[in-house]
């Protein structure tokens, strides 16, 4: 079972990964976007950290909802509502229990990913964060590390894709050959989850 602390560590590891990789995310967002993805997520996860620290939620579900709401209120752009919705919907799904099973977490994230797909209207292969989140969350059935690897793999697989959603779609064929920044940050999120799980073990 995973307690609130586990989720707290997940968010902390995500924030640390985003801080480490912010410049790279912004760099990836330059040729096919508007050069802000790294600073967007940095601002968001810094705010999540301070929200979780100043008023620590007492259940996994509450924690993910606070994190999601904070992202929505501080990130803006496309990634703010999308990541915010991912975590908020997953959090809602988890309810009030102070401990959740890996199976519950997996189901909650699947609901979150569906909500992202619904909100953004993207399908697999559209060269968005969904191309990392989708395979990543699916591979949770195997292990947390498998999920991280699948997300990483999914992010790399966006390189040859032509974007059909988000800013990169404006470029048409010129979007081919670049890795999607949102898919890359999604891999960081699932990588942080694996790290938290391994710390737990």
């Amino acid at each position, binding site marked *: 079972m995973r307690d609130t602390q586990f989720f707290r560590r997940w968010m902390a590891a995500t924030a640390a990964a985003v801080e480490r990789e912010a410049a790279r995310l912004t760099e990836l967002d330059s040729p096919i976007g508007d050069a802000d993805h790294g600073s967007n997520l940095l601002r968001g996860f810094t705010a999540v950290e301070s929200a979780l620290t100043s008023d620590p939620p007492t259940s996994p579900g509450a924690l993910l909802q606070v994190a999601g709401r904070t992202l929505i209120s501080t990130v803006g752009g496309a990634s703010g509502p999308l990541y915010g919705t991912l975590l908020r919907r997953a959090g809602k799904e988890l309810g009030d229990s102070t401990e959740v099973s890996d199976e519950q977490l997996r189901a909650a994230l699947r609901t979150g990913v569906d909500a992202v797909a619904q909100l953004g209207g993207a399908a697999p292969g559209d060269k968005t964060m969904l191309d990392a989140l989708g395979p990543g969350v699916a591979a949770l059935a195997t292990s947390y590390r498998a999920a991280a690897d699948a997300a990483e793999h999914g992010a790399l697989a966006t390189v040859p894709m032509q974007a059909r959603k988000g*800013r990169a779609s*404006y470029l048409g064929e010129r979007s081919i050959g670049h890795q999607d920044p949102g898919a890359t940050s999604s891999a960081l999120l699932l990588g942080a989850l694996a790290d938290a799980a391994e710390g737990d073990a």
Partner: protein
Amino acid sequence: MKMLINSPETVVADALRGLAAAHPELDVDVEGRVVTRRDARGSGRVGLVSGGGSGHEPLHAGFVGPGMLSGACPGEVFTSPVPDQMSRAAAAVDGGAGVLFVVKNYTGDVMNFEMAAELAGEDGIQVEQVLVNDDVAVTDSLYTAGRRGTGATLFVEKIAGAAAEEGRPLDQVAALARRVNESSRSFGVALSACTTPAKGSPTFDLPDGELELGIGIHGEPGRERRPMMPAREIAEVSLGPVLEELADIGPVDGPVLLLVNGMGATPLLELYGFHGEVARVLADRGVTVARALVGNYVTSLDMAGCSVTLCRADEELLRLWDAPVQTAALRWGR
């Protein structure tokens, strides 16, 4: 790249502080990132709220004031504002007649405004939204995020603002705004990329002998790169697709509104020269320019380049265009 800033993190807050100092007639909430005109609340008028990433100044905050926007919500540079800003602005400007959100068609803006509309609705404010999508460089299909919102935003905000000022009800103001958007098309060209404070270097490389056709206003590269051309050819190449798409809607046989817009770092000397070429092309094609506006209005930080926006107008739109406006960046009439 050097910038006249304190730090990339404080750019937007610093600019809002400066806006407040320069324009005591505006209510500037630096913390909450909302700029509103003082006399909106309880006015009985429809409130007009827009917003989007910063870096496009004077859009939108420079258009807040009598006859145009009631409120503006500046996000971080090139980042849509968060829903809290728009719901805060809606609450500040709701005069009892509801609020119209003017949203440029970008995934982030659309989602954040949508969430804000929900929040405002929960607060009991009647909200309508109009999506601006005038940029013909992007094909409007299932396989893209749809045409971007660019120069037509100024037309929508000015004309809907005049209608709101006249006391027209929300549905009419919204319908007018949609009509202006549907009647407008734009095309943009970059001679240089721009540099965001966060990145600190140009968003793309553009060699000396080349330009980008079909750019947006966020430093994204365009659809096509071409060898550099003289202004008169840039005018032809830009107006071609704009006129073509307008013709798809119907014959361009009436008066048009014209915006010849600089992307931020194009000197007015060049922009006026370009406008001369645009005017010539339109005259050659028998298009009657009823009103023309030339200047840096919908910008992309320090990008060099220009965009052209045409709006098929009629008596009513021209009358509302001519109506008095009193904002930081656009002023005429009494």
